C-alpha cells in the first residue's frame, strides 16, 4: 500500500477511515483538531456518508459516538486532554453499557501545556473507566492501533482509549496504509437492556465489566505493542511507554544495554513486568505525563526493589520529556553548547493586528478602569484569553470552558459590584449557555460580553455551533431584550462601545453585549478561496 507523510493526528484519521469508520465526533482542541479536519477534507463529495461535522462540545460528541455505536457502526471521538473532563460522564458510563459498533476514543494530552490549562494525563481516565488503553510511540503505531482498535473495541465490548501527546499529534512521518474495510451494517445489540443503566441493570453490567478485566489483561500480555527486549546489563530494567521510548532509544543509537519493556497497551502486562522485576536490580520508568506506570509499580508498599521515575526526582515531574532530559537521567553528559544569547527576547503570542477582540478590549478597559477595584473581568478559553497579556491586561481569570459567566455570577453573589464576563461565541455554545441560564434565573447584576468572531478561531477557524444564532439563544434563555446589545468592534465605534458597556455595567441586572466581527484570519482565507 502507499506510504503517506502524515501528522500523528492525520495517521489516526486515515486509519479510522481505512477501518470502516461511519462517523467522527469532536470539538476542536489542540492537539487533537487535525484528526477531524483530515476526515472532513476527505468527505467533501459526501459519497461515503461518513459523519464529520463538529460537535458543540466533547460531551455531545461522546454521546453521539455512543449512539452511532448503539446502531452497530464504528465511531471515533477525539478531544484534547481537558475535553475528557467535559465528557467524563458519558465516557465512564460507556464502559458500563459497553458498545455495539467499535468505538475508539482519542485523548490528546499536552504535557508542557503548549496550548492547555493543565497537563493532565488521560491514562488515568482510561484506567478509571476500566477500558483498554493504547499509547503509540510513532505515527505508524498510531495508524496501526486505530486500524485494529475498532476490532479490539468490538472484541472487548467497550470503548478503547488511544492516548497521544502533542509531539506525536503534531509530528509528521511516513505511514504505510492498509486495506480499506467496508463500514459496519446497521445492527443493534441482542440484549435489550444493554444501554439501560437503571441501578438494577447497571449492577449486572458493572459486574460484567469487572469480570472482563482479566480478558483485557490477557490481550495486553499478548499485545505486540508491549514488547520486551532483553539486554546484557541487568543493573536496571527500563519500562518506557509511548514516545518516551523514543527519547530513551535516541540516547542509545546502538541499542540499549538494559532490558527494555516498551509499553503501548494497558492494562500493564503483569507477566512481562514480573520477568523484569525478577531479573533486574532496579527499575526505571520513562513515561510522558503523570507517573501512571510508576504509581502502579510502586503501589503502596512497593515491589521490593527500587523504582526510579518522576516521584523520586529521577525525571522531572512537570513538563514534557525530550532526548536531553532522558539522557541526563541515564547519566549522559550534555554536550557543551553555546548559551542562549542575551539579545534573544521572549516573543509571546498576541492577538492579530485587526482582530475584533482588540477593539472589544480597548472599549472594555476604558469602561472598567472607571470602576477601579469595584470591577473584575472573568475571562474564558480562546484567542481572547491573550487579553491577559500587555497591552490589554484586561482579564483576571481563565479556568475552563464557560467558567467566565458562572465565576462572574459567583463573585457577584459574594458582593463584587461590577462583575464582567468575556467569552467567545464557540466557547459560549460549548459550555456557556447553561451558565447564562443560571444568571438569567437570578437576574444576576453581571455584564456578559460574548465576543463573536463567528468561528472557533484559536484552533484554526473551525465552524462555530452558534453562528447566526447567538441573540436567539440568549433571548430563548430569557435574557431581557432591553439589555441585549449588539456592537461592531471597530476603532471608529470605540466611543459607542464604551458608552454601551458603561451603561450595562451600571444596570443592576443581567446584560449581554455581543461585539460581532468576523475573525480576520477566517475572512482572509475566504477571500483567497473566492
Amino acid at each position: 500500500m502507499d506510504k503517506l507523510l502524515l501528522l500523528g493526528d492525520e495517521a489516526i484519521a486515515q486509519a479510522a477511515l481505512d477501518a470502516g469508520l461511519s462517523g467522527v465526533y469532536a470539538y476542536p482542541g489542540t492537539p487533537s483538531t487535525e484528526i477531524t479536519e483530515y476526515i472532513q477534507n476527505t468527505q467533501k463529495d459526501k459519497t461515503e456518508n461518513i459523519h464529520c461535522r463538529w460537535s458543540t462540545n466533547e460531551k455531545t460528541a461522546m454521546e453521539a459516538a455512543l449512539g452511532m455505536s448503539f446502531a452497530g457502526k464504528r465511531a471515533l471521538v477525539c478531544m484534547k486532554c481537558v475535553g475528557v473532563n467535559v465528557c467524563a460522564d458519558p465516557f465512564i458510563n460507556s464502559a458500563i453499557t459497553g458498545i455495539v459498533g467499535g468505538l475508539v476514543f482519542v485523548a490528546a494530552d499536552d504535557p508542557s501545556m503548549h496550548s492547555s490549562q493543565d497537563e493532565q494525563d488521560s491514562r488515568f481516565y482510561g484506567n478509571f473507566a476500566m477500558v483498554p488503553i493504547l499509547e503509540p510511540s510513532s505515527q505508524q503505531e498510531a495508524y496501526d492501533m486505530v486500524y485494529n482498535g475498532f476490532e479490539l473495541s468490538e472484541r472487548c465490548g467497550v470503548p478503547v482509549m488511544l492516548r497521544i501527546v502533542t509531539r506525536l499529534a503534531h509530528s509528521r512521518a511516513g505511514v504505510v496504509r492498509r486495506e480499506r474495510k467496508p463500514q459496519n451494517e446497521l445492527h443493534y445489540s441482542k440484549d435489550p437492556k444493554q444501554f439501560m443503566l437503571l441501578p438494577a441493570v447497571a449492577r449486572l453490567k458493572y459486574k460484567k465489566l469487572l469480570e472482563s478485566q482479566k480478558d483485557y489483561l490477557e490481550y495486553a500480555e499478548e499485545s505486540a505493542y508491549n514488547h520486551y527486549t532483553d539486554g546484557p546489563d541487568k543493573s536496571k530494567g527500563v519500562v518506557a511507554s509511548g514516545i518516551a521510548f523514543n527519547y530513551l532509544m535516541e540516547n542509545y543509537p546502538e541499542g540499549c544495554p538494559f532490558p527494555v519493556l516498551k509499553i503501548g497497551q494497558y492494562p500493564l502486562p503483569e507477566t512481562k513486568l514480573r520477568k523484569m522485576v525478577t531479573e533486574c536490580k532496579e527499575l526505571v520508568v520513562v513515561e510522558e505525563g503523570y507517573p501512571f506506570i510508576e504509581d502502579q509499580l510502586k503501589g503502596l508498599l512497593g515491589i521490593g526493589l527500587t523504582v526510579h521515575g518522576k516521584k523520586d526526582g529521577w525525571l522531572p515531574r512537570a513538563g514534557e520529556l525530550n532526548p536531553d532530559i532522558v539522557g541526563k537521567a541515564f547519566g549522559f553528559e550534555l554536550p557543551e553548547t553555546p548559551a542562549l544569547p542575551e539579545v534573544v527576547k521572549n516573543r509571546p503570542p498576541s492577538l492579530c493586528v485587526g482582530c475584533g477582540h482588540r477593539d472589544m478590549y480597548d472599549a472594555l478597559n476604558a469602561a472598567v478602569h472607571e470602576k477601579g477595584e469595584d470591577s473584575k473581568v472573568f475571562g474564558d478559553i480562546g484567542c481572547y484569553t491573550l487579553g491577559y497579556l500587555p497591552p490589554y491586561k484586561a482579564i483576571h481569570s481563565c479556568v475552563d470552558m464557560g467558567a467566565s459567566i458562572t465565576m462572574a455570577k459567583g463573585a457577584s453573589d459574594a458582593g463584587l459590584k461590577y462583575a464582567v464576563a468575556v467569552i467567545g461565541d464557540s466557547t459560549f455554545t460549548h459550555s456557556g449557555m447553561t451558565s447564562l441560564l443560571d444568571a438569567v434565573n437570578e437576574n444576576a447584576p453581571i455584564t456578559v460580553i460574548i465576543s463573536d468572531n463567528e468561528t472557533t478561531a484559536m484552533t484554526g477557524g473551525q465552524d462555530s455551533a452558534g453562528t447566526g444564532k447567538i441573540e436567539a439563544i440568549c433571548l430563548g434563555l430569557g435574557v431581557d431584550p432591553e439589555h441585549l446589545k449588539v456592537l461592531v468592534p471597530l476603532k471608529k465605534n470605540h466611543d459607542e462601545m464604551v458608552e454601551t458597556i458603561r451603561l450595562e455595567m451600571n444596570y443592576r441586572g443581567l446584560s449581554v453585549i455581543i461585539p460581532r466581527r468576523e475573525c480576520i484570519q477566517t475572512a482572509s482565507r475566504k477571500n483567497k478561496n473566492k
Partner: protein
Amino acid sequence: MKTDIILSGVGGQGILSIAAVIGEAAVHRNLYMKQAEVHGMSQRGGDVQSNLRISDKPIHSDLIAKGKADLILSLEPMEALRYLPYLSKEGWIVTNSTPFNNIPDYPESSDLQKALDAVPNKVILDIDSIAKELGSIRVSNIVMLGAATPFIGMDYEEIEKGIRRIFSRKGEDIVNMNLKALAAGKAVADSHMKH
C-alpha cells in the same frame, strides 16, 4: 546520511511551507523523516519552530537533542539565535536578515548583529529583496530554502524535483519562478562558503 534541521520564525511567516519541500524531496528519496511542528496558541505571532530530521536509518525522537542540529534555517534573525544551544559545533545558521519586530523589547540591530557575528558558520541574506528582484515577493521562502540547500544533505537536484512536484499543479510559470528563487538563494550560500 542524517541531517537534523531546526526551522524557526514567527507564527504566520510560513516555515512549514519550506519544511514541506524538504519533506517531499526526502520521502521521494525513500529516506526516513520526522518533522515536529507547532500548532495552536503559539501560531498567533509568537515564536515558532519545527524540528525536521532526515536519515537513511530509522529515526527515534521527534525532537532534536541539544548540540545536535546540523542546520538552523530561520526566517527571522533573532529567532535563529533562539535555537543556538541546539546547534552542533560544525552546524550552520542560514537566516533571513530582516527583523520581525512585534515586541516592545526587540533588540537593537547592532546588538543582534554582534550576536550573529559570534556564530562561526552562517549565511545571512535578505530574502525579500532577492525575491523582489526576481519579480515576486511570494517566493522569498524558497530563496531561503535555496540558501540552505548546501547543508540539507540531499543533492540540489532532488530539492529542485521536490519544488516541481509541490508547485506543478500551479502551472509551469510558478514552478520556474520558484526554481529561480531556489537558485538565487543557493548562489548567496555558495559565495558565503567561498570566503
